[in-house]
């Protein structure tokens, strides 16, 4: 009998998705069971057919890692570290501009990893006692230093447990990402192994478990082989808690030189369930939202309702706000040249709730109202939610 190929599994917070020979099956989570028991109970026959080395898993079930980044300047240290963290599947809690560190209040929540960066190698030291003083007020589990070599011994003495890696800023002032990226993806694996309800996934696979956003980002160079998508494009994944954007680097004018063709960005407070309140707050503070609600034939009361109709409107608002926050009208970490965009791909729960027409009308509204265009980019829905599976294994190994 021919041995089955690879089994690909995505462990989400509400669904398991299993890809076997290119066919995707979805299983709604049973929240009365722990995740591992739920998976092995529902898919025991399928799992039995595969050896551990043929099973590949990605997961967003542990919520992802959070990071606080402390950097010397906005244009280089912070920008490079943010880029690497996002592309490694990490969610950024906050950033601290080191030169003004006294003005920053330490975050209250537990931070999985603090990243400290600044200066090229060979320059004068930039970090002093202000850094350890600030860190005393921060609750963190890991800390990594990826800045200039001059400060290494000072930080090793002053900050217990600090991990020292190569500088992410090269001697040509360019980004050097590999070592930090590997550290962060390995940290994700360590986090899974430390969590009782999900560590047993390693009983069924001998491969590294990656975070789903990292895998989705890795799938993007192969997307045009599978879907009718034209570069430059963005992929929007609107979930219950956060919204992930993956975008072609052709859409950004910045000073980052990288091998990566696509970057990731996270809006952590634009989800329609867990962060519903902040989404509504953000919507109410946007000058165009009332016009948008009028266009949708609803009043602002819909934002307070709990109904299917309200969920749909919130998802439409979420699409609008995401596009707005990435446009030139909103100063943020990046500004995308949305005028150049050829395709918008939507994945995640939103494709189950909104129809193509409902998504199309909101994107057309954005392009007409904000960018003064008469047409919008082509819209593609990943309704079967299979994009993640393209990034799990190399193109040759794909089912």
């Amino acid at each position, binding site marked *: 009998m021919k041995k089955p190929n690879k089994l690909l599994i995505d462990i989400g917070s509400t669904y398991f998705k299993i890809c076997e020979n290119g066919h995707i099956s979805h299983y709604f989570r049973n929240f009365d069971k722990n995740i591992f028991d739920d998976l092995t109970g529902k898919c025991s026959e399928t799992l039995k057919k595969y050896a551990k080395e043929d099973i590949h898993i990605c997961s967003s079930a542990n919520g992802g890692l959070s990071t606080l980044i402390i950097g*010397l*300047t*906005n*244009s*280089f*240290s912070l920008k490079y570290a943010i880029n690497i963290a996002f592309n490694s599947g990490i969610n950024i809690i906050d950033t601290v501009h080191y*030169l*003004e560190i006294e003005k920053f209040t330490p975050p209250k929540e537990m931070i999985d990893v603090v990243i400290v960066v*600044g*200066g*090229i190698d060979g*320059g*004068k030291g*930039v970090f002093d006692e202000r850094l350890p003083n600030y860190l005393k007020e921060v609750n963190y589990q890991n800390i990594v230093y990826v800045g200039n070599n001059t400060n290494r011994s000072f930080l090793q003495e002053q900050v217990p447990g600090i991990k020292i890696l190569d500088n992410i*800023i090269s001697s*040509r*002032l360019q980004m050097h990402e590999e070592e930090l990226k590997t550290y962060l993806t390995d940290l994700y694996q360590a986090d899974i192994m430390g969590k009782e309800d999900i560590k047993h996934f390693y009983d069924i696979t001998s491969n590294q478990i990656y975070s789903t956003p990292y895998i989705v980002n890795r799938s993007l160079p192969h997307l045009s082989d599978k879907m009718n998508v034209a570069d430059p494009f963005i992929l929007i994944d609107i979930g219950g808690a956060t919204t992930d954007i993956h975008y072609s680097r052709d859409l950004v*004018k910045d*000073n980052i030189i990288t091998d990566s063709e696509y970057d990731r960005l996270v809006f952590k407070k634009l989800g329609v369930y867990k962060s519903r309140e902040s989404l509504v707050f953000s919507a109410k503070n946007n000058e165009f939202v009332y016009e948008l609600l009028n266009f949708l034939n609803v009043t602002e009361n819909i934002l307070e309702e709990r109904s299917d109709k309200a969920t749909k409107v919130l998802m439409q608002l979420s699409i609008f706000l995401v596009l707005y926050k990435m446009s030139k009208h909103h100063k943020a970490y990046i500004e995308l040249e949305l005028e150049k965009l050829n395709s918008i791909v939507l994945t995640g729960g939103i494709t189950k709730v909104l129809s193509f027409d409902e998504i199309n009308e909101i994107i057309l509204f954005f392009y007409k109202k904000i960018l003064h265009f008469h047409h919008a980019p082509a819209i593609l829905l990943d309704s079967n939610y299979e994009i993640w599976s393209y990034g799990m294994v190399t193109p040759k190994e794909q089912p």
Partner: protein
Amino acid sequence: MKVVTGVVGNDVHVVANRLIDISLQERGFEVFNLGVNTYLEEFIDAVIETDADVLLVSSLNGEAEGWCRDLGILKSKYDFSDVVFMIGGNLGVGEMNAEELGPKYRNYGFDLVFHQVDLNEGLDQLENYLKERK
């Protein structure tokens, strides 16, 4: 010595930028070239990250007058006392009084200002200025 250079604002005069880069390297400077279309904040951040000795801003389309007026504010946020701030190129737009440009840019916070001056002459003066500062 380290020099950060680039063309400020919405200005794509890349040939001049390359000539400045090559000329500085020929004179023994370690050059960090930010290229064209560079914002003032990026110049300042590059000086901080590299611990540079000189910032050499160039402008060919004359828009530096607008782009550089916040230099004083940015300089006040960090200790740049060891850094030489220099600007050169075509520094005015339209019918301006060339004699007023030097004081105006020095008032912005530049130590050396070269409006329509030959590149090598400007770099000679930079080297003299650096020697005198020692």
